[in-house]
């Protein structure tokens, strides 16, 4: 067995080095190492029981039909990395400049940095804390705001029983960030959560819980990064976005894991009446990624804008499942996912618009556009509608296309070499979505990432 903890001196770390794969013992040790209250351990163990009771998804299940789990080696994963020391400043991070530019560039209201299983850095602007805003890691939130965590953590948005991997997450979650904005408080600049996975072969779990009370406004950014390594790492993210009446949230997630990573992400928002979510999912990293992204529109006049960008190259496989769940009438959802693929990459997009009985005057839009840049790449897109109301407007569209030779020729006829022309066209393909993000640093990061992916 490989030991990843040779340089660790703390006693629990030595004992933990013996663990591989997930187990009830791993759950107990993790909770003990974090000295968690009993109710947290109980919730973890209940999730573990759920995990054990659910079968491993197979391709006979619709959501997994095109997404074979072959190659995921959960039994080989070290279930969690030992606690690491906090850092005094972001300068102590070993990150390349591009990630730094995204995560720490620009103005921010607060930031957490999670390195493997531990939050190593937390920063929050005092001005917002004075107005009742809570921005901290989940361990601290459990100690200091137990009532809020008990109420919202994996209870409504993403219950541990949602599926096999959500249950595993409920049992094994680590680190994590909590944002709470009280009623009527508005914070325009982003709160950022930056997650680094630095121990290949070890699982990384991350959790973001965002709770906006009535009329609150906030902007939250999640960014995940690791350098590509040899040993497979499992990454699990759960994002819970809870919007009370009239709340407004902008959420951006950038997934840039190394190519050794198998990624399983779940995001759910719950929207009360008159609330508004604007979310953007960016998937560029990992070897294999499954993202389940949904909005529960629970109140009248709720609005969810759900945008996505993905770009797969090499042998990457990305699967995005989206859910526009209209549970109340007079709500609007507007979804657009755009993907590019090259080399032998593959993607699956599957989007469901579900309109519950009585959810009249629903207005739902769904579009998935794919640009295939290489002969060996492939995109599958599957729209689904389930409508149990009769006075609704639901529109969906899906396309898989290639770069048009006429476009390349036009640009070449202006002196632009073929490779640059292709890059310009791909950037143009994503541009309408990128332009909808109001942060220049994020726009620049995405443009650069797309440029690198297209290559020359």
């Amino acid at each position, binding site marked *: 067995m490989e030991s990843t903890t040779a340089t660790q001196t703390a006693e629990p770390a030595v004992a933990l080095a013996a663990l591989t794969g997930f187990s009830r013992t791993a759950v107990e040790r993790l909770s003990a190492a974090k000295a968690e209250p009993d109710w947290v351990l109980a919730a973890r163990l209940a999730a573990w029981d759920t995990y054990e009771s659910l079968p491993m998804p197979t391709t006979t299940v619709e959501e997994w039909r095109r997404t074979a789990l072959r190659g995921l080696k959960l039994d080989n994963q070290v279930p969690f990395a030992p606690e690491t020391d906090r850092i005094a400043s972001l300068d102590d991070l070993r990150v390349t400049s591009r990630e730094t530019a995204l995560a720490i560039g620009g103005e921010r209201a607060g930031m957490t940095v999670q390195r493997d299983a531990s939050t190593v850095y937390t920063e929050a602007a005092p001005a917002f804390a004075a107005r009742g805003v809570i921005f901290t890691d989940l361990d601290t939130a459990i100690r200091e705001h137990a009532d809020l965590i008990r109420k919202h953590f994996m209870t409504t948005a993403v219950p541990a029983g949602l599926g096999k991997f959500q249950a595993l997450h409920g049992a094994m979650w680590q680190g994590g960030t909590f944002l709470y904005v009280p009623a009527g408080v508005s914070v325009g600049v982003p709160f950022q959560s930056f997650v680094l996975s630095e121990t290949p072969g070890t699982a990384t779990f991350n959790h973001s819980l965002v709770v906006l009370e009535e009329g609150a406004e906030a902007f939250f950014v999640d960014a995940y990064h690791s350098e590509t390594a040899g040993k497979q790492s499992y990454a699990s993210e759960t994002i819970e976005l809870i919007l009370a009446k009239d709340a407004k949230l902008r959420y951006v997630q950038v997934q840039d894991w190394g190519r050794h990573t198998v990624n399983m992400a779940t995001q759910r928002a719950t929207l009360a009446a008159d609330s508004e979510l604007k979310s953007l999912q960016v998937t560029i990293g990992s070897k294999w990624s499954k993202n389940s992204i949904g909005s529960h529109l629970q109140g009248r006049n709720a609005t969810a804008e759900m945008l996505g960008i993905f770009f797969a190259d090499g042998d990457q496989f990305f699967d995005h499942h989206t859910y526009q769940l209209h549970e109340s009438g007079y709500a609007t959802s507007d979804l657009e996912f755009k993907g590019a693929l090259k080399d032998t990459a593959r993607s699956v997009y599957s989007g469901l618009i579900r309109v519950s009985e009585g959810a009249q005057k629903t207005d739902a839009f769904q579009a998935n556009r794919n640009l295939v840049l290489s002969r060996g790449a492939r995109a599958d897109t599957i729209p689904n509608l389930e409508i149990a109301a009769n006075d609704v407007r639901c529109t969906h569209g899906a396309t898989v296309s290639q770069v048009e030779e006429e476009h390349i*020729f*036009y640009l070449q006829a*202006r002196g632009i070499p073929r490779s640059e022309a292709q890059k310009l066209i791909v950037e143009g393909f994503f541009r309408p979505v990128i332009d909808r993000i109001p942060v220049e640093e994020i726009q620049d990061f995405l443009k650069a990432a797309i440029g690198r992916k297209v290559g020359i």
Partner: protein
Amino acid sequence: MANDTPMFVIENLHASIDDKEILRGVNLTINKGEVHALMGPNGSGKSTLAYVLAGHPSYEVTEGSILFNGEDILEKEPDERARDGIFLAFQYPTVIPGVSMANFLRMAVTNVRSARSAAANDGGAQKLAPREFRRLMREKMALLKMDDAFATRYLNEGFSGGEKKRAEILQMALLEPTMAILDETDSGLDIDALRVVSDGVNALAGPEMGILLITHYQRLLNHIKPHHVHIMMSGRIVQSGGPELAMELEAKGYEQLRAEVAAD
């Protein structure tokens, strides 16, 4: 290159698309400073000729040559030809979503000017700093009576017919070609737009530039005066002459001319 080398020489050019021969032996020589009009009915091969000169990949040249400043360009990619100084104003400019005019123009100008500097070995003297580029772009846009907001729009997206043609001439103005091929730049233009576009072309024309104007109608030639007029039919130039040939054609129509050519 000797000074007496003609700038642009098309010799016995044959070209096909999907094994169908469209050009059947085109011969045409254009010298510096000359404006040539190429007229002809629909389907005579005018636009095919324009595409073949620019290097469109769908057409296969089966015979003949295209010499630009004495050098055969047939093996060159479209972008190399453009950097050498050949410009095609498209009859139907392509819409490219998400690519802003300004970004596209800057990229085109950078490529063309870098190549020119490299050819002149002037150490990059022709390259433009971003500010210089913006000034040049605004200047040329003013020449074509284009609004500043144009620069931020996506390439040809939502452009009216007239705006598209103006945008083509703007590109010509910025790239400063020595051989410009204008494929039905007058089509779809009302009389005011036609004047703006023609004035733009006239302002750019000069002793160093050759121009090939492809058009159906004589009316463009009232605005841009050609030195030579050629009539194309069935993939060949069947008649060449001075400006009076265009007038004659306007009076007789293509049908009569076709009959005359057939009789010869």
